């Protein structure tokens, strides 16, 4: 029967008329049943002791043969033992019937096989230890065992069955021939097989015997017995398909008895699996020919199909097909939009269900289908305002047919489209970002945006504000990272008056909207028209509107936080630094962000980075540095921005964790260029750090402003040979070195070199402005560094020369220097008439500053020792209050004299304290004398190096 089944699956059968096919299929299951009934009968009646024993032997022999094929010696040994045992059991039968020929044949074969194996020395060597051991045991056993059957064997040898044991087909048919010799009922079967293809016959064999054989695994093996590899290799091609189908049928066979009562519908469901059967031919299976197709019937059918959803054995693609079919039927019979919407809903859901795991993304075809379906659905919904879709509609209250009332359908369009959005992100995540496939996918973004837009228009008047917030959020998610290139087009001075311009922008004809994120610039080429958006609104205005609505109406904190972050991001992206900064400050997100969920934290990081970049463009270097510091300091920017997984050195990620992290990744077109980020960070760090380093060269309390910048410097220092800079980092390091000696020209050359332009600066939308800003900053900071570093060499400096040297305006130089003087960074004064800076020569030399540090440290030591001394004197080291008292006494007058004397005595006793006590004492006396030079130590500590300088 199986052969006929497959025959139907062949291409020729597809031409057959549908009714013919139906008949055939209808018949088929019945036949199967008959067949199995027959088998059961034989089991009961004919299968006496003899048959039972022989069958047993036979199965074992089959197993043995299989093991032989894969040369699994230990298994062969096992089977052989089993065989001998079975033979013993069958002893009295054998006595009656004579030695079964197939048994003798098996023994002969086994012996030759073992001898062959034994002779093959190389093969034996390569065998596993277990196998070779089994082989030698087998050899002995078989030899011994065969002695008992010597007579039978010799008779067999005289007229061996003409066969080549290795050839599958032959042996199989042989076997059936053998079977025929002792079992009548099998003969019929065997002859049947002979007609069929060899491979299939063996399969059928297993079918027939599946009832009898106890272990399914062995039969399964048998099914592919002739070539185990085929099981794995022949994945494609009709064979595998057939097999799968057969399996399914097998299942059906088992289910059958329970389903006997189920009427045609049930049967219709399995007819679908008929291989190669087209959709058209299936249709009658859905509903019987004469059945009236009504809404109820379709609804019932829909429920039936959906009942299988999520069950283990359900074929998901089949479900989709079924639903598509059902939809066609319902459109064909004009069942109304209510039904259509309901079926569409289920269909979309089953498309979502298509992937077994959530983490996998859809196939492109599926995705296309999904897009079409969703668009259809929205079209219908838009066209029929009477349809109410709501998840609150109870299933019983659904109204699918009545034309008088409004349709009521259970379901939620919003979550469906949210899911669509998620799927889209997943698709993008799964693509290789540098392939054309990605671009193809990205083209769908337009569609997705369109759908969201439609959804928004559809839901605008229908749902609560909370739901509307969700829709808005979806729109924002697709908007916030896109750079609106029209902003650059506007003249800079007009920017101040942005309000009227925005109105102007609205009137502008449809413009090109850049897909890509402005700063990264990677996707700048992928531009798309936005014809779908009928009214082109300035994205900024739209963004404002959407966000403000969310701020006002949102009840879940999450959406509001997201909206704020996106808003800031958008502001920062479009160079509106003050708005962005103020919004960030007002939101107070910095305090609470560590408590929010990870996607929001990622968004926060992205926003901070964008804010930093914006600050940099606005020459707020300090702000830029602060914004980027957190992201950049750990060297984990990539991870923090969810733009790729970092290799973890310490521990391996757990697979689940990795999966989770992969899910969080940003699609490539939303990435922020990491090199740009790092470069901006390093340049800001350089602009801050180099003058600071120059100013605080000897300060022991000097702190690093940027650790990673220092790290880069250190790496560069470690290199034995420094060539011309190649990478971005090397450029910055080289520039820093130039800046250290005040060589602003060299520094600018490095930072604004061609390489850097291509790599980094060109990614900014307003490149020239940024470059000009950087140049100015470098000039200023170089001037500062120069003054810090070389002020000790000069007595006075002419402003004119400085202005010339740094190519800055004299006024600017003047202001920079004045600022330094005011901040007491530079010990100098301005001499207006001569236009020069007069140095005060106050910086201590290296040795002097070191000596100052030493004196500071020693005074700490002295204080410590004095505390110890107090203990010696019996004053308990008491509370803070007493310590305070000590302090007062220390600087006071009368009491100290007393204490000092005692100090001195104490000092005599122990050498260690003699010095300290004495020193302190002297100090005190000098101080009492009117604050001469000696008292300096203490005071100097208090006001540090500058104080020292000023006194001189």
């Amino acid at each position, binding site marked *: 029967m199986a052969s006929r089944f497959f025959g139907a699956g062949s291409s020729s059968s597809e031409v057959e008329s549908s009714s013919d096919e139906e008949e055939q299929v209808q018949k088929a299951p019945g036949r199967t049943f008959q067949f199995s009934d027959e088998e059961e009968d034989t089991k009961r009646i004919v299968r006496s002791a003899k048959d039972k024993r022989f069958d047993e032997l036979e199965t074992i022999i089959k197993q043995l043969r299989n093991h032989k094929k894969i040369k699994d010696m230990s298994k062969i040994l096992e089977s052989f033992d089993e065989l001998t045992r079975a033979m013993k059991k069958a002893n009295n039968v054998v006595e009656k019937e004579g030695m079964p020929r197939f048994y003798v044949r098996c023994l002969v074969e086994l012996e030759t096989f073992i001898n062959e194996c034994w002779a093959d020395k190389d093969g034996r060597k390569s065998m596993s230890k277990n196998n070779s051991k089994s082989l030698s045991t087998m050899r002995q056993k078989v030899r011994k065992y065969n002695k008992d059957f010597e007579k039978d064997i010799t008779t067999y040898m005289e007229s061996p069955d003409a066969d080549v044991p290795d050839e599958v087909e032959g042996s199989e048919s042989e076997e059936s021939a053998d079977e025929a010799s002792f079992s009548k009922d099998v003969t019929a079967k065997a002859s049947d097989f002979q007609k069929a293809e060899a491979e299939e016959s063996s399969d059928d064999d297993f079918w027939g015997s599946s009832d009898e054989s106890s272990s399914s695994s062995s039969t399964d093996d048998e099914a592919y017995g002739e070539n185990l590899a085929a099981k794995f290799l022949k994945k494609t091609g009709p064979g595998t398909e057939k097999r799968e189908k057969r399996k399914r049928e097998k299942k059906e066979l088992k289910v059958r008895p329970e389903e006997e009562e189920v009427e045609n519908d049930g049967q219709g469901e399995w007819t679908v699996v008929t291989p190669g059967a087209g959709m058209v031919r299936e249709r009658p299976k859905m509903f019987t020919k004469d059945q009236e197709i009504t809404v109820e019937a379709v609804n019932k059918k829909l429920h039936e199909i959906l009942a299988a959803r999520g069950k283990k054995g359900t074929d998901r693609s089949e479900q989709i097909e079924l639903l598509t079919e059902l939809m066609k039927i319902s459109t064909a019979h004009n069942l109304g939009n209510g039904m259509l919407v309901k079926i569409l809903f289920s269909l979309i859901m089953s498309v979502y269900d298509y992937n077994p795991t959530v983490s996998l993304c859809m196939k492109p075809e599926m995705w296309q289908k999904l897009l079409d379906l969703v668009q259809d659905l929205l079209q219908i919904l838009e066209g029929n305002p009477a349809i109410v879709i709501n998840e609150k509609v109870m299933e019983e209250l659904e109204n699918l047919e009545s034309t008088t009332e409004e349709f009521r359908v259970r379901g939620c369009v919003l979550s469906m489209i949210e899911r669509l959005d998620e799927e889209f992100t997943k698709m993008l995540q799964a693509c290789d970002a540098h392939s054309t496939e990605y671009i193809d996918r990205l083209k769908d973004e337009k569609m997705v945006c369109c759908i969201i837009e439609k959804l928004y228009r559809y839901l605008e008047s229908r749902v609560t504000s909370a739901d509307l917030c969700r829709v808005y959020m979806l729109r924002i998610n697709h908007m916030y990272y896109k750079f609106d290139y029209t902003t650059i087009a506007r003249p800079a001075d007009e920017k101040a008056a942005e309000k009227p311009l925005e109105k102007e922008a609205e009137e502008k004809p449809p413009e090109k909207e850049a897909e890509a994120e402005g700063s990264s610039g990677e996707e700048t080429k992928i531009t798309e028209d936005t014809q779908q958006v009928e009214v082109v609104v300035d994205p900024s205005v739209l963004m404002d509107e959407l966000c403000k609505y969310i701020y006002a109406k949102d009840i879940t904190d999450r959406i509001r936080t997201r909206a704020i972050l996106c808003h800031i991001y958008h502001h920062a992206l479009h160079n509106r630094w003050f708005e962005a900064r103020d919004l960030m400050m007002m939101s107070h997100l910095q305090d609470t962000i560590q408590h929010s969920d990870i996607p929001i934290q990622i968004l926060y990081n992205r926003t901070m980075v964008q804010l930093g970049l914006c600050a940099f463009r606005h020459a707020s270097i300090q702000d830029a540095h602060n914004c980027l510091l957190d992201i950049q300091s750990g060297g984990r920017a990539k991870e923090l921005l969810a733009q790729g997984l970092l290799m973890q050195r310490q521990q391996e990620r757990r697979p689940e964790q990795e999966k989770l992290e992969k899910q969080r990744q940003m699609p490539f077109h939303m990435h922020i260029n990491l090199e740009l980020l790092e470069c901006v960070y390093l340049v800001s760090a350089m602009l801050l750090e180099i003058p600071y380093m120059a100013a605080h060269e000897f300060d022991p309390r000097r702190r690093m402003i940027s650790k990673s910048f220092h790290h880069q410097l250190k790496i560069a220092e470690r290199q034995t040979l420094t060539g011309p800079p190649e990478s971005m980092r090397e450029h910055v390091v080289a520039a820093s070195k130039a800046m250290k000696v005040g060589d602003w020209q060299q520094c600018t050359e490095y930072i604004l070199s061609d390489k850097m332009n291509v790599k980094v600066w060109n990614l900014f939308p307003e490149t020239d402005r940024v470059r000009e800003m950087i140049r100015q900053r470098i000039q200023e900071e170089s001037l500062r560094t120069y003054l810090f570093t070389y002020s000790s060499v000069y007595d006075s400096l002419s402003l004119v020369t400085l202005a010339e040297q740094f190519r800055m305006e004299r006024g600017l130089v003047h202001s920079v220097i004045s600022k330094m003087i005011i901040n007491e960074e530079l010990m100098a004064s301005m001499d207006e008439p001569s236009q020069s800076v007069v140095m005060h020569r106050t910086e201590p030399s290296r040795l002097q500053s070191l000596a100052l540090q030493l004196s500071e440290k020693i005074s700490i*030591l002295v204080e410590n020792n004095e505390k*110890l001394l107090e*203990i010696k004197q019996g004053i*308990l080291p008491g509370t803070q209050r007493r310590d305070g008292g000590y302090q007062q006494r220390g600087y006071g007058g009368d009491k100290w004299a007393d204490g000092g004397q005692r100090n001195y005595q104490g000092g005599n006793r122990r*050498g*260690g304290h003699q010095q300290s006590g004495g020193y302190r004492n002297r100090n005190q006396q000098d101080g009492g004398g009117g604050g001469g030079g000696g008292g300096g130590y203490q005071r100097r500590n208090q006001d540090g190096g500058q104080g020292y300088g000023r006194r001189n």
Partner: protein
Amino acid sequence: MASGRGSRRTTESEATVQYVQLDGLVVLNIIKHCEEVGSELSQGVLLGLLIGNCLEITNCFPFPRNALDDPDFDEMQYQMEMMRHLRYVNIDHLHVGWYQSTFFGGFVSKALMDSQFQYQHSLDESVVLIYDPLKTTQGYLSVKAYRLTPQTMAIYETMDFSPENIKQTKMAFSKIFDEVPVVIKNSHLVNALCLEIEEIGPPTEKYSFLDLATSSVLEKNIKLLMDTVDELSQDSNKFHNHYRQVAKQNQAKQQYVQKRHQENAARTAKGEVALPEEDINKLFKPLLPPSRLDNLLLSGTNCFYLACFLAWL
């Protein structure tokens, strides 16, 4: 070559060794060794003989450099071998001490104390020669001989560096080492050569204050000094904290005793049996006083740094 700049201050203690007589050969050997080793620490064995109050050091040999890396290397074996070989060529083979290089005088350490203690413990006349290669680069020779004072030896034997013990034995950082005057003795031939060279060469008189390199050396010295001062103040802080804790404990103890007394008084007044006096030390475990060894060593190091510093000025 100029003779050792070590002061010829005589030690008050009746030491077995009144002065050390160094052979020119030994000095050159040590210098050579340190040059070879570079900036690493170099150590070696001194050989010689004690004659009366004078310890004559006539030869030396270095410890191999990477001895610590090689697990199979047996130091004792090596020394014995060397000495035997030297004996064969009829050189003094008596072990009389060891030498070590130092930078900026920061040689005082626990390791040095340990090994010098071992030496002096087994051979009473052992000395440690401290050689400063940096000075040599400036044109001065700095070789000094030190011995642990009897006080140090006594304390070291017990390894008791508790504050009380230090106090009792009147130990101080200045009393860790005895400096033994060093005399370099050359053969007459060499002396003659030296005189000759002196006549030929430029005046050997040096004015160290004109030396431009001093400032960097001084800076380094100050930095080192700062480090030790830092450590020292940390140490004294520790010590101070210890006393605070002791004081707190004492207070607690007193309170406890007082309370017990009152209770007992009340009980006897009521006619009950007084509570037994428990061992107070069980309730309040006496705090372990911190070792003063670090303090001594750091102070000693400081002292030597300062000496070194002053030598440059």
